[in-house]
């Protein structure tokens, strides 16, 4: 799919959407009203802003959301990196092994987001399509039916691949976080 529409145009649109999302996120942070902004709102706002730019005008809303999903991943990963660095700097106590596994049910910590990012990279090496699928679904909120159109496979395939990728990624993320935590433990000990 990516090859079909041309790498260049994807990159161009990606960087555009990324910049826009980052700019919006920064605005949100600066404002006093950040309480009510969700990523969906940001994507929507980016679309308002970019839908008529020459780079995006030919893009269907669906493809835009796929690109936005990638951009959103990038924005969140970078924010997570900064947050993570801040924590280390401020001497925050590291989370220990027992606290995070296996009860962790949401991805809400910067480290967890970074772990998802690198797990997704690993996944893309063994199945590029599944990595795109997860990216679109998790970061872009795309529906199964929409992913089926984007990835040019049946909805059943999307559902099956989502289920196995979801399990695989969760295993990877837990493993990664366990490794980090024990590493930190060793250093501290």
């Amino acid at each position, binding site marked *: 799919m990516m090859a079909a529409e041309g790498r260049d145009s994807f990159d161009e649109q990606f960087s555009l959407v990324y910049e826009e999302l980052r700019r*919006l*996120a920064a*605005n*949100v*942070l600066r*404002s006093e*009203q*950040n*309480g*009510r*902004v*969700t*990523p*969906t*709102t940001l*994507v*929507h*706002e980016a*679309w*308002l*802003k970019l*839908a*008529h730019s020459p780079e995006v*005008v*030919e893009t269907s*809303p*669906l493809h*835009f*959301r796929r690109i936005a999903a990638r951009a*959103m991943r990038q924005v*969140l990963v970078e*924010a*997570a990196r900064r*947050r993570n660095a801040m924590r280390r700097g401020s001497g925050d106590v590291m989370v220990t092994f027992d606290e995070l596994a*296996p009860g*962790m*049910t*949401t*991805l*809400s910590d*910067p480290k*967890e*987001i970074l772990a998802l990012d690198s797990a997704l990279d690993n996944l893309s*090496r*063994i*199945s590029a399509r599944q990595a795109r699928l997860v990216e679109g679904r*998790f*970061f872009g909120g795309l529906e199964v*039916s*929409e992913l089926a*159109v984007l990835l040019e496979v049946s909805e059943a395939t999307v559902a099956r*691949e989502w*289920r*196995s990728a*979801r*399990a*695989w*990624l*969760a295993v990877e*993320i837990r493993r990664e976080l366990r490794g980090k935590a024990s590493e930190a433990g060793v250093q501290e000990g």
Partner: protein
Amino acid sequence: MDEMRWQAVQEIFSQAVELPVEARRAAVHTWCNSDGSMVAEVMELLEEDGRGQPLLDSSVDQAARAVLDFGPLPSLIEKQIGPYRLLRLLGEGGMGVVYLAERTDIGGKVAIKLLRDAWLSPMRRQRFRMEQMTLAQLSHPSIARIFDANMLEDGTPWFVMEYAEGLPLTEHWQQKGGTIRDCLLLFRRVCAAVQYAHSHAIIHRDLKPSNILANESGEVKLLDFGIAKQLGADLNDHATVTGLRLMTLAYAAPEQLAGRAVGVYTDVYALGVLLFELLACRLPMRAGESGVDAVPEKPSTVIRQEKPAFYTQLSKAEWADLDLLTMKALEPEVERRYGTADALMRDVDALLDGRPLEARPPDWSYTAGKFLRRNRKVLATLAAAVLVVAGTIVFYTVRVAQARNIALREAARTQRIQQFTESLFDGGDKEAGPSLDLKAVQLLDRGRHEAEGLRGDPELQADMQSTLGGIYQKLGKLELAAPLLEASLEERKQAFGEGDPRVADSLVAMGSLRKEQGKLDDAEKLMREGLSVLQRSAQASQTAKARTMVGLGAVLETRGKYDEAKNVLEAASKLQPAYTQGTADTAENLAELGNVAFYKGSYDASEAYNKKALEIYRHLFGEEHPAVAQILNNLGAIETNRGNYAASETYYRHALTITEAWYGPNHPETAANLTAIAQQLSYEKRDTEAMVLLERALSIQKQGDSGMSATVASTQNQLGLLAFNAKQYDAARGYFSDAMERWRKTLGDQHPFIAIAYSNMGSVCLDQKDYACAEKNYREAVRRLDASSKDSVNATIAHLKLGRALLREGRFKEAEGETRPAYEYLVKHVPADNGFLAASRKDLTAIYEGMHSRENAARFQLELDVAAKH
């Protein structure tokens, strides 16, 4: 883990999750062939899958809030807004949140919608206001009414709507159930509400079950006009083309998904999906979606297989009608879909009443065989053109929305497509077509293949070929236009005989193509043939004759045969209807007369002709039309030659705005306009600006095909002049000689432009003090210009230049013979501040000083001084 192993693990995992938990381990062991590590991997995945809350099912919102420091969403429940107290959240979307609220003073429940994050952008707030305005315009029992609107202290706008109780349409239908007739009656109510909105020029664009509530008694309520579009509304609303919300995929029409223009037919598609879903209890598959089967599903097939009890309610013929109706609403191609909700509703009524449907078989416009049915002939021709034109208009809408042209955006409406199509066949203005748009070209190509399929009906085929050829020509695809026009000519000769006026039409069309291709001999011959056919034919109309004569005049003019051209054009103008009811033909005739006058140096006459033409074009087409731009360019050229550079730049810039908006930035017409402005700038010594424009123009022109050759030459000539001004003599000589060669090839050796090229070469020699070379070139220019247009400004300038070369050689007497008559001419024909006039005085002063004729020298020096003071 590698790709292969992951595939194997995944396969086993996918099979194992289908098994009861207790059976999994044994099965995994078997499937893994006792590969211990693989068993472990699969079991690990199964364990993860078995957790109640899979990690990745959490919302990205939480992740974002965590890393972006966003606080939690505040709840507005129990909050008081004006007289309303919020009770619970009804729904939320990308922009708004809707709460159920009650009025605390007089009681009663309402829905209140607030715009989230209103502060993010003005566009957002405007959009929200649009929804309020839309609702305020609509008063229909099936559309939620708006009661109140205001703003919170923090600037969040809100409005209050009627609270509609009920279930989403499909849920309602599934719970309530009923016969197919009940289903159609329910659906009809939705159609009526949508049609009501359409009759107020509002397209909903997001019709889906959750936006259509039905209550116990089956009354429906249309909600959420959040992305509705007002037809013909404010042009800044680019949403026309793209749609603001990321709409719900299943109900979105193909044109919405592709980001093309939407219309009332977009809602019709969503209605088709709804009908299918109501009947079949599931969504229709999109063509090609099932992988194998590109043919769309029919409701009857699905229902027979999946709901046999339902199937028996209708007869076979009734099912055929219901299939037809549903499929026509679900047509991926706009032109074949029901054009309006009203048309769909009429067929629903017809079905309910047992009357025949208005819908035609959906494939009629594509089946070549059906073209041959005599009674469908006209329709068939129209259909193929609709195909062409629909693409064109879609393109238009995009382009024009950018150009902020209200009138043309209206053309996107379906009925306009029809009118537009018909005008193509009425011999209306084909130039109203756009250019160099891929989509249009692709559609044309399809039209061309269809024309090839019409062998059984040569007359119709000839019509199609001729129309398509004309459009290709307008699109600048000359090599594609030629075979079509040739074929059309041959077909018509055989079908009607050589003397038929339709054959003349073809000859003239061919002639105009040849002219564009630069094959001027052929062009003149074809035009003359066409004219003689018409003059011999009793049926030929005055209009046809006049049009042909204008065509011939234009060819003669391009060949530089100005006197002949003038005669033909004047004769043509006598055949035109009275000026008061000027047509496009009249205007074209006037413009061509203006061109001839211009080339002969009669600027006043040329200006008068052009201004008349301009008035007619403006009246016929409005301000933003290329024909208007063309005339503005002509007027600019006149002012340039009069030396009124400021006035001419104004004309040219105005023309460029129109041309660029119409044709786009990379079209030959745009390039031509850029060249004109650059010429202007170079006269004003604004060479750097000129150079930039010319380089842009040249790069556009070089993309074009052979027909552009003469234009490329003009650009080269301009670049030559700039190089000359910058004293880059070698470059200048290179440009001028390239230009001369190109002109010679395309326009023939006798063309006056060749003389201009000689004159320019001469100027390079003169500046380099190679006077013999200058004299040689100028003499050639003089000889040629005297032959084609003696006593014109151009010829006079050539004499003046020759005089200057002779002056530099010290041959004063001979110089006087050239320069003095040039001065006498200029003093009568150009404004007092003309640069060439000043040059002639300066040269004469020097000449008479050289001849020791002090009195004369003093006279011209005085004239120079006086002119300089003004």
